[in-house]
């Protein structure tokens, strides 16, 4: 069976488990782009949860829709209090498309509702493109099943087989399913060794194991059920490859060869003598299921953990509830809008005699929906400073240290002013985003400390990475500016080849692209003496050029402040 078919079977099983006990499992985090594969999965879901109350949310859903509120239109028309019901008030299945754009506020609310055990469950459809676009961690933690169908081919995804009769039978069995004592400790140990620290995960795994047992008509959780649970719940959450437990003294005499096929019979014969720990079998199952990009994730410094809670979610864009007041405008009540009462009454005033006559009620103020005026506020969006740091060999280590010092000073200031800070470093044959825009001082410091130096100067790649990051920041409602700290001329081009002429051309091209997007910023020359060509580059970028031959951290910080804050 191909990997794709296996994955699809697992999805099928996951769906059956979920349909059996949605409340205990919390839900499914499905990572897949919109397309026929996801449609097939959703068809299966429809079939599996048929008869249940299913509601769709959207990432920008307001509180009145979630929790219910006064139905103002109806209240105004009838003159008696009319309320709408909130989506979270009744038990049922919630579907959240575009889950990667959910704000942390929504995530916290949904997480709270799921925790309350009101019989709610959630299927989060995450359409994120890159690893940094994912659903808020708070939500992912509450959803037992994590499925990634991004690479699933349609040919490997036939219609899902959901046996509704079997579900009915399994639902009858479920309350009687018992869990042997050892199962709990095995799940706990596997979770621990996979580096799954949250204690929700083993509990969810337990629920999946129960559901799996009931589905196969058993009333006791057995090893296959545990393997299912580990595959569906624990393995996708793994943050490390399992190591052998340290207390295991039974080391084989001769060190085992690295996995070669001909080892297998030997191991099998070993197993005959001493049956392996059940945990080991379970771990083997988990290893086969580890996310394929785990190594990449680990190398990237645990992207899973470090991805800010709601990147790609537009969370940074502030609502229109504060800032400089603007004139009131006609609008609808509800949502987060605030009614400007005086303006509303003013709008209603001229109509009073007419409306009194029309309704025959003389003793109250007649306000209609069309009179409602909404307050509006204008707010400056937050600033995001993107530092593009030259970490090439020409930036001697001392200069790199100085640059780091300057950034640390700026960070302290950014922190007090609630600015966002991002870090891009370029060296060798390319650039790397060390940190997407964040306000977390801890993360920035950690990343900065780890920044290595050496190699060529791929200036163009650095600028390109900064541009991409700036565009992303802008789309989230931040105001980005780019601070380039370098001391040398470009000598590595966009493709990563050492070619001075092409490199300079690419750098100029990228600089112009930055200017074309209207990106503010500045170029700081950290070389011992002003570098030829950097001022021209600054001109191409349309930003100030600051030669700082004796750059110390304080001087750089002051320069950035004045250049980015003309006011």
């Amino acid at each position, binding site marked *: 069976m191909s990997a794709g078919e296996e994955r699809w079977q697992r999805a099928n099983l996951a769906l059956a488990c979920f349909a059996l006990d949605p409340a205990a499992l919390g839900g499914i985090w499905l990572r897949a782009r919109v397309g026929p594969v996801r449609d097939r999965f959703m068809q299966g879901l429809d079939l599996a949860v048929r008869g249940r109350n299913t509601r769709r949310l959207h990432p920008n859903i307001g509180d009145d829709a979630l929790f219910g509120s006064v139905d103002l239109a109806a209240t105004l028309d009838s003159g008696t209090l009319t309320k709408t019901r909130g989506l979270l008030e009744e038990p049922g299945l919630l579907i959240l498309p575009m889950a990667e754009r959910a704000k942390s506020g929504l995530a916290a609310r949904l997480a709270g509702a799921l925790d309350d055990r009101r019989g709610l469950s959630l299927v989060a459809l995450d359409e994120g493109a890159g690893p940094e676009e994912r659903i808020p961690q708070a939500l992912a*933690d509450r959803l037992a099943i994590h499925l990634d169908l991004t690479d699933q081919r349609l040919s490997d995804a036939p219609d899902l087989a959901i046996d509704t009769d079997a579900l009915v039978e399994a639902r009858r069995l479920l309350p009687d399913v018992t869990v042997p004592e050892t199962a709990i400790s095995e799940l706990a140990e596997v979770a621990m060794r996979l580096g799954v620290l949250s204690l929700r995960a083993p509990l969810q795994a337990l629920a999946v194991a129960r559901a799996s047992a009931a589905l196969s008509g058993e009333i006791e959780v057995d090893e296959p059920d545990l393997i299912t649970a580990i595959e569906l719940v624990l393995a996708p959450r793994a943050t490390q490859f399992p190591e052998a437990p340290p207390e295991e003294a039974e080391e084989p005499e001769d060190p085992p060869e690295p996995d070669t096929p001909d080892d297998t019979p030997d191991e099998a014969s070993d197993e005959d003598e001493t049956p392996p720990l059940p945990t080991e079998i379970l771990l083997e199952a988990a290893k086969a299921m580890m996310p394929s990009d785990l190594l990449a994730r680990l190398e990237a410094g645990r992207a899973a953990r470090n991805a800010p809670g709601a990147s790609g979610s537009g969370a940074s864009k502030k609502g229109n509830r504060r800032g400089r007041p603007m004139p009131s405008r006609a609008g609808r009540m509800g949502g987060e809008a605030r009614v400007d009462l005086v303006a509303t009454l003013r709008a209603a005033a001229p109509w009073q005699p007419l409306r009194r006559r029309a309704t025959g009620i003389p003793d109250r103020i007649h306000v209609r929906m069309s009179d409602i005026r909404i307050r509006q506020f204008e707010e400056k969006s937050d600033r995001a400073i993107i530092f593009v740091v030259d970490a090439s060999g020409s930036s001697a280590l001392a200069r790199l240290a100085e640059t780091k010092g300057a950034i640390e000073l700026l960070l302290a200031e950014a922190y007090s002013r609630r600015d966002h800070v991002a870090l891009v470093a370029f060296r060798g044959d390319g650039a790397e985003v060390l940190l997407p825009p964040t306000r977390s001082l801890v993360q920035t*410091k950690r990343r900065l400390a780890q920044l290595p130096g050496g190699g060529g100067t791929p200036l163009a790649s650095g600028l390109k990475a900064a541009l991409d990051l700036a565009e992303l920041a802008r789309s989230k409602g931040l105001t980005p500016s780019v601070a380039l700290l370098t001391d040398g001329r470009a000598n590595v081009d966009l493709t990563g080849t050492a070619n001075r002429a092409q490199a300079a051309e690419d750098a100029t091209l990228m600089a112009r692209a930055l200017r074309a997007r209207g990106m503010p910023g500045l170029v700081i020359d950290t070389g011992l003496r002003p570098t030829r060509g950097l001022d021209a580059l600054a001109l191409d970028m349309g930003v100030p050029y600051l030669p700082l031959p004796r750059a110390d951290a304080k001087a750089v910080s002051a320069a950035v402040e004045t250049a980015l804050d003309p006011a």
Partner: protein
Amino acid sequence: MTEPATTGPFPFSAIVGQDDMKLAMILTAIDPGIGGVLVFGDRGTGKSTAVRGLAALLPPIKAVAGCPVNSAVETDVPEWAQVHDHSIVEKPTPVVDLPLGATEDRVVGALDIEKALTQGEKAFEPGLLAKANRGYLYIDEVNLLEDHLVDLLLDVAQSGQNVVEREGLSIRHAARFVLVGSGNPEEGELRPQLLDRFGLSVEVESPKDIDTRIDVIRRRDAYDRDQAAFLADWHDADMTLRAQIVTARDALARVDADDSILRDCAELCIALGSDGLRGELTLLRAARALAAFEGDPAVTRDHVRRVAPSALRHRLRRDPLDEAGTTTRVTRTVEEVLA
């Protein structure tokens, strides 16, 4: 003693481990004057479970039946609240959730639009701060809270009063509450001003010990499977703890703290360079509450030593270049000063 409930939050005393967090919460229950508790740490470590469990644990308060701000006596009931029922009843200590992204109106209260529009009446609809008076205000993911809400909370926590002046309303009411915040430091940090408002701060992490973890899972599973039985099992433990808290509250005023203890507190804070005097005061209050909790007649150095990390770790000036972390700094200094 009350009967065990058949449904309810996970019992506080059934929480495995996390002793720092549990102790900090118990101390604020004994002496609300300590201020709030800030719980920072990993996900799925029982932060919210502890807060919700605490609500069931706290002794009930006596309050005017119809009062929206849980006033203790009739004269405290604010004028704007049209309270008809002035009898004094027992209410559970309020533990109010402040959800992220809650609107300002919902937090401080606002003009009751419905009444204004349908009856032409100008009435005040109390918000979460009113509900939380004399109880707890819990903010999950406090570091993600909108800045303007943070400002507002700081102001109210400082003055103990909520003042609403808008839309032609001029309302004030008492809003004294213990602020409990939880969060994950990787998602953003708290402003120093807000940090300072929390009396105690604890850092929680997932237990690394496999047996502890198994215990957690087993208990939670038991709770999920049969809530009533589990609650009944732990009812006595919870009630014993509640009785201990009540006894400690009574004893609090009688716990001595002599000058040498005050000197210890002051020296500690000077050595750590914590800002202002709030550090010393909180340290002393927490140490006194701990002494009362343990039935000791006077505060000893040991009490101070044990509460010092949670009372001081969030008050240090942030040093961007110190990687060691503030907890280590506090522990080190405590050992030096109280050697």
